């Protein structure tokens, strides 16, 4: 039973939700700049910072678990990591992928070394530093959440204020500079915001999986919209949703680290979005493909019936199935489809065009022949090229374009092969 009035659970859900909003919003810019994996490297590079800050705090007699202190340490090493990636790619032949890999693994190694040293001193258990590895939202204290909320608020406010700058910067940075925007400073600002978003998430999701919370909500949101503003809002929402869901699941059972549950929640969102988002969804695209294929087959069947009709000027006469099979397209499924749509009538072993079928068939044949004529007149294409191209275009051209072409050609009556262009349905 999930009890949202349980203060621990409330903390957990609140903290993870706040994190999801921040990571989702900033993640959009990381993904659009193709820097998805920078977030991963940054998160790993933050680990030694957390440990060093803890050591520093202990040494200076401060409260070493003070969240601002730990986050500050994380910020410093994450920044150093980013700068190293930049310096490496600028001054050597090392490419960005290897630079990210180097910073990620070596910094993480250093973090592990520090962590084991602290463990030996018996300090980590009271510090709970291992929660920074895979995340333990249950360990969030109210002051942690307050820190996250304040940092997150500042990040979102900055994002709101500089939204237009970031938009043009990410889309077209050379143009942004030509407008006189301070591109270098904006880039540093944007990267800093991403660093803050990563660091804020460390305690909840952990360094290892933080990258997913940056990238996945943005990737999911992109499927639902073509506007940047909407994408940022959606990604925030997705981030919050998976944060709360993941943290809640993790809190209900023992030995379920928060990081993995949140990541699995957000991965599920990505999967759903990729499959079912309107327009971009893979499922709909597959449906559309199937529908188009079915329509093309149907139209080919009608066209073939029309052509048979041209041979003896009897357009709605009954045609033997075997004749149709010989032409091409009379597949049983297509015929069933055509009959259900009321375009053909099946009688015994024959098939004929209905009234509606005649209208539709005439339109397709007209498209085909006008397009062939257009190609041969405008492009001087050889006759044998015309048919194959028209075979595809007749299904794709919309009526507006066809009408324009028809008008431009002066409403012709025959195609380049001398066959009539149907202008209506024979009585």
């Amino acid at each position: 039973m999930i009890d949202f009035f349980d203060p621990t659970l409330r903390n957990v859900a609140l903290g993870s939700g706040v994190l999801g909003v921040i990571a989702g919003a900033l993640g959009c810019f990381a993904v659009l700049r193709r820097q998805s994996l920078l977030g991963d490297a940054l998160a790993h590079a933050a680990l030694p910072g957390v440990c060093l800050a803890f050591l520093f705090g202990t040494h200076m007699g401060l409260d070493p678990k003070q969240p601002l202190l730990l986050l500050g340490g994380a910020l410093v090493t994450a920044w150093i990591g980013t700068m190293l990636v930049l310096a490496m790619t600028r001054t050597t032949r090392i490419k960005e992928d290897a630079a990210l890999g180097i910073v990620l693994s070596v910094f993480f190694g250093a973090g592990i070394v520090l962590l084991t040293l602290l463990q030996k001193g018996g300090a980590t258990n009271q510090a709970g530093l291992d929660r920074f590895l895979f995340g333990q939202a249950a360990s969030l204290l109210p002051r942690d959440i307050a820190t996250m909320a304040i940092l997150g608020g500042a990040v979102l406010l900055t994002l709101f204020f500089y939204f237009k700058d970031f938009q043009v910067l990410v889309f077209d940075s050379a143009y942004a500079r030509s407008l006189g925007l301070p591109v270098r400073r904006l880039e540093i600002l944007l990267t800093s915001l991403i660093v803050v978003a990563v660091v804020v998430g460390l305690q909840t999701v952990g360094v290892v999986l933080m990258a997913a919370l940056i990238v996945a909500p943005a990737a999911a949101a992109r499927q639902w919209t073509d506007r940047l503003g909407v994408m940022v809002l959606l990604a925030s929402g997705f981030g919050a949703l998976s944060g709360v869901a993941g943290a809640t699941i993790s809190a209900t059972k023992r030995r379920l680290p928060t990081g993995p549950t949140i990541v699995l929640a957000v991965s599920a969102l990505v999967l759903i979005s990729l499959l079912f988002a309107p327009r971009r969804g893979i499922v709909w695209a597959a449906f559309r493909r199937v529908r188009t294929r079915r329509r093309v087959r149907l139209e080919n069947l009608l066209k073939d019936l029309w052509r048979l009709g041209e041979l003896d000027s009897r357009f709605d006469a009954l045609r033997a199935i075997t004749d149709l099979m010989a032409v091409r397209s009379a597949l049983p499924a297509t015929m069933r489809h055509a009959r259900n749509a009321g375009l053909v009538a099946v009688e015994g072993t024959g098939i004929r065009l209905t009234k509606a079928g005649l209208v539709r068939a005439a339109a397709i044949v007209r498209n085909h022949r006008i397009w062939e004529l257009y190609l041969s007149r405008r492009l001087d294409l050889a006759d044998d090229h015309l048919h194959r191209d028209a075979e595809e275009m007749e299904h794709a051209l919309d009526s507006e374009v066809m009408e324009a072409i028809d008008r431009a050609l002066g409403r012709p009556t025959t195609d380049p092969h001398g066959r009539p262009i149907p202008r209506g349905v024979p009585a």
Partner: protein
Amino acid sequence: MSEPAPVEVHDVTVAYHTKPVLWDVDLTLPGGKLVAIVGPNGAGKSTLLKAILNLVPLSSGYVRVFGKPYNEMRQRVAYVPQRESVDWDFPASVLDVVLMGRYGRPGWFRRPRAADRARAEEAIDRVDMTAYRDRQISRLSGGQQQRTFLARALAQDADLYLMDEPFAGVDALTERAIVALLRELRKNGRTVVCVHHDLQTVPEYFDWVTLLNMRLVRSGPVDEVFTAENLHMTYGGRLAILERAATDYLKDARGAARGG
């Protein structure tokens, strides 16, 4: 006093690391003209535009735009980058992109005002893209994408337009529309500088040509500068066929101009 020239390039050298891309280029481009920058691949054509726009560091020399450093005059300059330089999958509509043309104005940073929006829509209309105003930019054809970029520059309402290969990869209809637009800009006293690849259309589209191959070969009115010898100097022996084609076209164009 007459207005200073829109572009003065004084002894400009640009190098990536220590490899020169532009080598001591010195030229002045006159106002109210359509200018083509022409030269082989890697001749530094785009770099010259970027040098004017203060987008690359100069190893030597300086640039003046309307007699002043670029940063003081950037309100009067609009840049049209190469179409391939951006990711068209970016989540933005045509209107979103064109509105970017208004971002350089002071006080823009709250939200675009109604006046900015009106300007953007007017620019979209001038390139015949009103029907596509709200369409996502990845679902545009190459020509429509180029028109979008042009509209963005128009929305800046500049006096000097710097365009990096505006004719690259566009359909014939768009090419004609762009030419018409350039002429309209010239009629209104604007200056347009284009990096241009198609030698054959230079005499037809442009008034002034700058031949570049790392060094400046020649720069001047098309009918003085666009000659076989100069093209030969620009392209070396590499493009003999193209060069002959250009010369033929030039002859035709001049013949037509004389005849007409």
